[in-house]
């Protein structure tokens, strides 16, 4: 068994490098000549190799070593980035992930029964296959031996009407390579000025000449044909290439851009060294401590001490705890791009497998969410995206027939809206047939036919989240949606979020997940319901009212109030919290109503008493009570007692 600390670090870092590899390889697919990316991918493979070797994972070392070699040869221009190359890299990446996963399962030992030989041989075959080896391309390599600065110099000379020549020769005389080479240099110097040679003049003079090739850049006033004649006169050499360089070949704009990019990168990597890697559990502890502090601050505030100093200290304490809370929240925030980055690959693979053409667009990767939410969210999003490919987007032929663009479109967007983060998965596929969903729901006994008639389309579509519904296998064919939507909703609910669906038959579907910005601390309205204190998150409260009995109207036998021309249904908190016999109406006194909102729905909750508004630290009820109806969590109030948090979505939905 390996030391756990190192192992955790290993997994952490591997994850990062795998992500770099993943993104890099996909970028390369679109821009095969992007040297920066080749370098980045190479470095990631190299680092992975180093780590694997340190930990003694032989298979992983070998595998990453091979991939590193492949990439190195691309850097040297020996291999070109082809589809085959990309596929092989992606397969390699899969194998890396597989191995890392196995190591994790095996508690830090590389399983002995895994054989990567086959794949490694595949890489070897690929890299030695002649057809994959890049052909020497003269037009491209002409100015390849020059740096940007040298090109600039040459360009300046050229503007002064001097000609720039490139000459490469091979010396046939094995015994006197240096002598012959020196003769070439001499000749060039007779005709003009030597600008650069490889090997250099000094190396040739000192006979440090390796190989038999000589590469020269020089300036001359003479026309090219005269020069060629002169050089041909030298015996025992063969001219491999001789030409005059055009201005365009010396334009170094592109190079300069890359250089400046490089400079930027350097700055970035320098800046990143001022960050610290912290175990997420430490952040959780910090968060809990801040929570405790907050609770105690509230307790202190409620003491109501008549002292000038006390009154002075409390606002200070208030400010400090608020700021502390704010900073802790910020530390925990991670851009959603971290999670999104795995999806392009998934979409690519799936669409290839299913023979569908899909244009996948991601937006808002920089939107930040709490780390714990991001970790949980990956599975539901994967599910939604899979469904979009699997059941949403039609085949190219079908799309053509329907008069749609042959290429389907899937969008994944993240953005902030008020105090919530929205994540949207949208496709322009077949859409969902609400009528069929309704039929199915009746068939399954989820709803009666009469009830269905009263329902709006939005509510009918919501049935696909019903557990009794989405476990039915044939739904796939009927609704155009796969199984497991109830699981998606459960995860989202667990994160205190909600998911809504909109679909136009034939035009596509969109799923919107909305999540609270932070999980742990929120403002809440405290209310009294049958002598217990409950908290209602303030972001789901639209307003509070005091009404009297005559304000209550009946619509289809149900109690409602009319508020600014909107009819809002009323429910008794007492009743939904277990007291079946509750009847507020017989009470002659005024009623306290909290108008709850979730999405664009509103409902009036009748409570016994409106108390205060305060900051609460949201605590989980734990897995044992997680599914309790109408209760989403708990918090600790001033006196150390527990107050339950009302699940507004449960009530309003």
């Amino acid at each position, binding site marked *: 068994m390996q030391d756990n600390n190192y192992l955790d670090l290993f997994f952490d870092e591997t994850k990062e490098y795998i992500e770099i590899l993943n993104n890099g390889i996909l970028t390369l697919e679109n821009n095969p000549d992007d040297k920066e990316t080749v370098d980045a991918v190479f470095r990631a493979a190299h680092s992975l190799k180093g780590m694997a070797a340190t930990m003694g994972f032989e298979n992983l070392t070998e595998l990453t070593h091979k991939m590193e070699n492949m990439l190195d040869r691309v850097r040297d221009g020996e291999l070109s980035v082809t589809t085959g190359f990309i596929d092989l890299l992606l397969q390699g990446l899969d194998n890396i992930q597989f191995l890392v996963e196995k190591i994790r399962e095996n508690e830090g030992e590389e399983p002995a029964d895994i054989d990567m030989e086959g794949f490694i041989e595949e890489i070897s075959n690929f890299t030695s296959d002649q057809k994959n080896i890049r052909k020497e391309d003269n037009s491209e390599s002409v100015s390849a031996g020059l740096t940007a600065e040298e090109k600039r110099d040459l360009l300046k000379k050229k503007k002064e009407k001097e000609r720039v020549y490139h000459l490469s020769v091979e010396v046939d005389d094995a015994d006197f390579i240096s002598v012959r080479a020196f003769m070439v240099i001499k000749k060039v110097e007779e005709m003009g000025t030597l600008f650069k040679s490889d090997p250099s003049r000094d190396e040739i003079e000192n006979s440090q000449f390796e190989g038999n090739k000589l590469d020269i850049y020089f300036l001359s006033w003479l026309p090219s044909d005269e020069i060629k004649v002169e050089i041909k006169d030298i015996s025992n050499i063969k001219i491999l290439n001789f030409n005059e360089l055009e201005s365009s070949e010396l334009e170094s704009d592109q190079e300069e851009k890359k250089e400046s990019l490089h400079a930027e990168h350097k700055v970035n990597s320098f800046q990143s060294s001022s960050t610290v890697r912290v175990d997420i559990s430490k952040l959780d502890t910090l968060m809990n401590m801040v929570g405790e502090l907050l609770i105690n601050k509230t307790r202190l505030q409620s003491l109501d001490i008549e002292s000038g100093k006390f009154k002075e200290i409390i606002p200070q304490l208030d400010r400090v705890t608020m700021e502390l809370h704010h900073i802790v929240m910020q530390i925990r925030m991670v851009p959603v791009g971290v999670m999104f980055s795995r999806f392009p690959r998934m979409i690519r693979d799936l669409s290839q497998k299913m023979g569908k053409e899909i244009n996948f667009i991601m937006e808002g990767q920089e939107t930040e969410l709490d780390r714990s939410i991001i970790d949980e969210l990956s599975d539901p999003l994967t599910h939604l995206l899979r469904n979009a490919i699997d059941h949403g987007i039609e085949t190219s032929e079908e799309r053509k027939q329907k008069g749609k663009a042959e290429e389907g479109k899937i969008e994944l967007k993240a953005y902030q809206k008020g105090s919530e983060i929205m994540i949207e998965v949208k496709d322009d596929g077949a859409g969902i047939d609400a009528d069929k969903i309704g039929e199915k729901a009746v068939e399954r006994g989820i709803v009666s036919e009469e009830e269905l008639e009263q329902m709006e389309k939005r509510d009918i579509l919501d049935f696909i989240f019903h557990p009794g519904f989405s476990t039915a296998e044939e739904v796939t064919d009927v609704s155009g949606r796969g199984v497991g939507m109830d699981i998606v909703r459960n995860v989202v609910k667990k994160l205190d979020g909600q998911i809504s669906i909109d679909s136009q038959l034939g035009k596509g579907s969109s799923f919107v997940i909305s999540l609270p910005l932070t999980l742990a601390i929120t403002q809440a309205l405290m209310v009294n319901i049958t002598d*217990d204190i409950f908290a209602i998150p303030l972001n789901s409260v639209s307003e509070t009212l005091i009404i009297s009995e005559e304000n209550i109207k009946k619509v289809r036998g149900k109690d409602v109030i009319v508020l600014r021309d909107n009819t809002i249904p009323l429910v008794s908190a007492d009743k939904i919290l*277990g007291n079946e016999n509750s009847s507020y109406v017989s009470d002659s006194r005024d009623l306290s109503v909290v108008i709850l909102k979730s999405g664009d729905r509103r409902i009036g909750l009748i409570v016994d008493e409106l108390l205060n508004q305060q900051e609460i630290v949201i605590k989980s*009820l734990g897995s044992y009570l997680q599914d309790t109806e109408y209760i989403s969590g*708990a918090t600790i109030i001033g006196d150390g*007692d527990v107050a339950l948090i009302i699940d507004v979505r449960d009530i309003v939905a």
Partner: protein
Amino acid sequence: MVSLTEAKNTKKQGQMQYVVFNIGQEEYGIEIDYTREIIKSAQITNVPNAEKHVLGVINLRGIIVPVIDLHKRFEIKTDESLFDESESRIITVEVNDVLLGLQVDRIEGIVWLDLDKITPAPDVEGGLKQDYLTGVCARSEEQLLILLDLEKTIFA
């Protein structure tokens, strides 16, 4: 509060340690490895819509812990005359990573039991469902110690 950490990790050959407590007139035992601590009954907040045997939740140093009433769980009739609130305790246990409190009428103590003295539970008419038990152990002539299968008691 009684710390159980010292008592832990003391498995002997052929013996196991159990925490023994009373519910009504019966004596029950649970394996000590499940237990975390024993606390005096705290302020319990009722959780509406939870299952009947869930008494509510308590604040255990900032952690919300559900508390289970074993009377209701096992459908044992409570004899009010035997119940003395000052003796009532909550045993916190951790089962399958879930932290829970079990409210019991009285703590008897911590005992070593010989594993070969534990016998399968007899099928008693109207008694506790066999499913909840791992076995029984006769500690004396008149008292039979009932050993609970905590996983089933809590999750079944």
